[in-house]
């Protein structure tokens, strides 16, 4: 079993001193039954041999008994916190390893796969149900199993005092019980694992049921009861096979007394007959009975086997994750060449992209140049692939065909996504809201040591001051009500924080700013204000803006229209309007209602 060295290695990694202390205490605990049996046996020998007048001879065994008792209490109480700390150290390191592994994969395509999310659930070492265990628990269980074996060996030695054949007589059924239990547990875990998909589905329904958006819909459309029934059904679908299994297991356990009782009966009868026939003493009999019985309770309910198994699952899931991410990650060539500021930042050359598992090409033979110092707007219908283009630009996906050149004609995949991303800053539609301080929410837009002066300047650029003024602790206020002293921001306020995050990145070295619908839910005035601030940045860096609002877009230096997975029109607003193509038509539709009122209905065919 290659798992044993791995688990013991984990134990060791928690700290040599603490690992040794826990090991010693666990071993001590398991020696207690054998020691107790010996001491009681000793007590009996004094009691039966010396007769009535010598209570004083019993003081030694009694004192020994007391000592065993104290040691057992001490081991039992103090091993708990030490084992806790050991487990926490192992699990903490494991969780950090999972985050690091997942977060350091350059692209997100693997991460978005359902199997990756399922593996993360298994590997996360933060049990959401009673079958899951953590690697730390597994490492301790490994130790427990070893200690169990040592304890059983000690008990066997006591039993062998009477006769050697008692050892197999008692040990074999005892191990058979453990084996039965282990197999049953294994079956449960396997079944549970096979049903993780259902569990995820039920979890999503639960989340949806209590989310703000679905909450409104289910009230207006009155499908609350329906949704709860659906949730119930999912629960039943998941648990019915489990019930069947548990019932089968309970029936299977009816065999246990048939294993335990006959061998114990034989053993007890044998030692009792031995005493009666003068073959052994009461003292031996007592010790043998106590130690023999302890063999059956020594291995407990098989918990450590289960714990070891389930905890190992988290480790296996981690390995599989590592394989999954490793396999799909192209390692970039080392050493990016020194870069200069005079470049045409990005060129898409015949780039095609199809989402994994689909056949529809979102991008198809796309050519696009993003120049430095310009404000480029990308427009297009919904689903034209604008957001996908941004994800490719940020190296979050690799193109299916074609290539993206950055800087001085270097292939993005050769340069490596990490190196490239140091030079860009992106605001996504669904940006991240850290439950950290306002300052952290801005400075996490850029790796490295935060620079307070730049932070202030970025806030100035983004017009964040009004938001800051409302925060009780200013920059240090956590942006989540769940944190002490924290506050929740509105959508618009968040959008401004994120804009600050992007501008902070710009001031600390990013050369290209990309924004996906940064003003979708902002009102007219704020939108214009944001646009003005962005336009100011273009000299420092290139700005790429995705927007449906042609009224703002028209002020861009250059506008490109994305249609059918490629760029079909490119030019300034005036040029495109003069061209009379799709952009001109889109603009006309939006503008028309301002010019002539709304009633000029346009035929659908004309639009698309």
């Amino acid at each position: 079993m290659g798992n044993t060295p791995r688990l013991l290695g984990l134990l060791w990694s928690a700290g040599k001193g603490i690992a040794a202390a826990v090991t010693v205490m666990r071993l001590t605990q398991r020696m207690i039954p054998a020691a107790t049996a010996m001491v009681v046996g000793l007590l009996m020998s004094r009691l039966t041999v010396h007769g009535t007048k010598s209570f004083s001879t019993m003081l030694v065994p009694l004192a020994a008994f007391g000592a065993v008792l104290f040691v057992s209490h001490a081991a039992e109480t103090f091993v708990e916190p030490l084992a806790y700390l050991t487990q926490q150290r192992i699990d903490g390191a494991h969780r950090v390893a999972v985050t690091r592994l997942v977060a350091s994969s350059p692209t997100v395509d693997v991460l978005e796969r359902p199997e990756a999310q399922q593996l993360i659930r298994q590997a996360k070492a933060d049990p959401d149900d009673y079958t899951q265990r953590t690697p730390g628990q597994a490492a301790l269980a490994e130790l427990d199993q070893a200690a169990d074996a040592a304890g059983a060996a000690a008990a066997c030695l006591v039993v062998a005092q009477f006769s050697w054949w008692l050892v197999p007589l008692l040990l074999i059924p005892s191990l058979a019980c453990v084996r039965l239990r282990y197999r049953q547990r294994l079956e449960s875990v396997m079944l549970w694992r096979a049903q993780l998909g259902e569990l995820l589905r039920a979890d999503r329904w639960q989340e949806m049921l209590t989310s703000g958006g679905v909450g409104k819909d289910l009230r207006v459309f009155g499908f609350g009861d329906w949704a709860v029934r659906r949730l119930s059904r999912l629960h039943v679908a998941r648990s019915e096979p489990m019930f069947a299994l548990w019932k089968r297991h309970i029936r299977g356990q009816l065999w246990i007394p048939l294993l335990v009782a006959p061998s114990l009966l034989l053993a007890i009868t044998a030692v009792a007959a031995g005493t009666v026939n003068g073959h052994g003493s009461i003292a031996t009999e007592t010790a043998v009975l106590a130690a023999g019985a302890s063999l059956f309770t020594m291995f407990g309910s098989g918990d450590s086997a289960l714990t070891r198994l389930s905890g190992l699952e988290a480790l296996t899931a981690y390995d599989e994750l590592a394989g999954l991410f490793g396999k799909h990650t192209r390692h970039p060539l080392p050493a990016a060449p020194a870069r200069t500021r005079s470049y045409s930042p990005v060129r898409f050359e015949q780039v095609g992209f199809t989402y994994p598992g689909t056949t529809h090409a979102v991008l198809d033979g796309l050519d696009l140049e993003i120049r430095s110092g310009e404000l480029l707007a990308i427009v297009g219908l919904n689903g034209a692939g604008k957001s996908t283009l941004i994800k490719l630009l940020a190296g979050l996906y690799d193109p299916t065909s074609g290539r993206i050149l950055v800087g001085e004609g270097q292939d993005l995949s050769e340069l490596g996504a990490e190196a490239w991303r140091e030079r860009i800053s992106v605001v996504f539609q669904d940006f991240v809201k850290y439950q950290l301080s306002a300052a952290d929410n801005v400075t996490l837009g850029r790796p490295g040591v935060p620079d307070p002066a730049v932070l202030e300047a970025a806030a100035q650029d983004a017009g964040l001051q009004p938001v800051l003024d409302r925060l009780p602790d200013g920059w240090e206020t956590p942006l989540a009500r769940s944190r002490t002293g924290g506050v929740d921001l509105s959508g618009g306020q968040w959008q401004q924080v994120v804009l600050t995050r992007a501008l902070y990145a710009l001031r600390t070295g990013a050369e290209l700013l990309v924004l996906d619908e940064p003003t979708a839910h902002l009102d007219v005035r704020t939108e214009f204000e944001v646009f003005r601030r962005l336009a100011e940045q273009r000299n420092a860096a290139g700005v790429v803006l995705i927007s449906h609002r042609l009224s703002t877009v028209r002020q861009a230096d250059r506008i490109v229209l994305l249609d059918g997975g490629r760029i079909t029109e490119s030019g300034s607003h005036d040029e495109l309007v003069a061209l009379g193509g799709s952009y001109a038509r889109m603009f006309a539709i939006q503008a028309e209602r301002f010019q002539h009122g709304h009633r000029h209905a346009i035929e659908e065919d004309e639009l698309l």
Partner: protein
Amino acid sequence: MRRYLALWYELLRISWRRAPAATAAMIGVCALTIAAAAGIALSLRAVIDASAHGTLGTAVAAACVAAVCYGVTVTLQQTTWDLFQLLLDKTNGELRPQIHGWIAGIEGLDHMERTDFLDRLEGARDHSWQICMSPWQLVMAVRSGLQLGLMLLILGAVSPWLLFLLLFAAVPLWFDHRGKQAVLDAETATAEAFRLQRHLFQLGTRADSGKDIRVAGAGEELVRRQAAAWDEVAHLRYRARMRAAGSKFGGWAVFACGYVGTLALVAYQAAHGRGTAGDVVMAVTVASGLRQTVQQVVGRTESTLATRTAIESYFWLRAYAAAETARTVGTIPAPSRLDQGIAFEHVSYSYPGTDRLALDDVSVRIPAGTVVAIVGEYGSGKTTLVKLLAKFYRPDEGRITVDGTDLADLDTADWRSHISAAFQDFGRLETTFAEGVGLGDLPHLTDHERIARAVREADATDIVKCLPQGMDTQLGRELGGVDLSEGQWQRVALARAVMRGEPLLFVLDEPTASLDAPSEHAIFERQMGRARQLAKSTGAVTVIVSHRFSTVTGADLILVLDRGRLVESGTHAELSALNGGRYADLYGIQAAAYST
């Protein structure tokens, strides 16, 4: 305490109803466990005494009893666990839907914005199995208590002095309790840091947040903070546990002294012929069992922090839902068509926990058959106004009437079955596309024609064409389905909103915020047409919320909101003519942007 007992009774009843055999078996197993423990102690004494007296027959008979009792004990240790899981899952299968049923049954939406509510929901839902476990923990504690009593009786039969051991057992009980309290306190104190590390872990490993973290290169920093939060929690909790261990050891040391003393007493009596060797063996057996039993009583009655939080959260949610339902007084059915219309009379509203008025003394009459547009800047109260119409909130002051009837007096479910809406933060229903749309009209959930029509009206036909299994495609990538873009989701929500045939009130809250211009235009034209049709057939009122002024010019009535106040109202022509008016001003900005 009575609440807890009532809850446990209720949970045991659920488990009896859903799994009578397993519940009965569990009780039987508990009784058998007690009997077997006593059997072991008594039969072992008999074996020793019989061997000492040389009566082999008695010894064999006692050995039979002992062997059977051991067999039963070993078996039950395992069976109990399986029964336990089975019963837990059965009860949980009823409890979770019950909690969600309460929440879905709450009329309003106040709870969604209340962090205290969300905390409780998390506490009760994510730990519902701990709630289900709690009555069985009590059963186990009672079992251990009974076992303790029986053991003491047996000891007392050897010598009444042995009953003093009970006093010694009470000492660790108290020390254990104190230690546990310290551990609980540490858990509470570190709960926030623990949540933070969990949050950071999720951010680092989820697909949606993954984009930002990669681009910003924040991964390593995130990992560092996660590790720091984890270490802080582990260290503080470890220290509390260590202190608790010290306290516990003190308690058990006292017990050990008492135990050794008692054993000495029994041995002394045996040595002086007032007892047998079997008595000593039994005293050891019983007393070491006693130690386990006392530990079980302490362990099981001391609920963990999670269990206590879960149960308290459960009660809180139940009371909240009950209070909300009690506030629901409307019984009047909604009219089948609107004759007069809808009127706001001095309506004010502020969100719970804020002192800013989201709506401030709004009065307006909306005649039946009107298309109303609500415009205003961010946070001016547009969405609040339509939410009040859907009865998501109750006005703090003033009232809203529908054909002269106070909205509060209308039966909410009935009123809602007469309205339809697409909200700005619509729900993303991760189910099949067809269901996502069809849920807009539950009776027609499987009516494919109806759904197809709604899809057409929402300009969403092209989305269906791109889906691998058409209408039956599962949505949501994490469930192995297809992910839709923001605009595509929006059109699903819109299609859902047009499922209902003849609503009296139709709300479109920023229905096209994420749509492109042609789509937006097509949808507006179609919805305008639909609004006119509805107005004719049922006198329906259509409310469009937008900050895009281009989309609202054709409305019969435009309401301009500013920081919760209704500042202007009228038609486009009227409002445009107002010199220096707010509408004219904002319209001007946008119009200028489109001038060629």
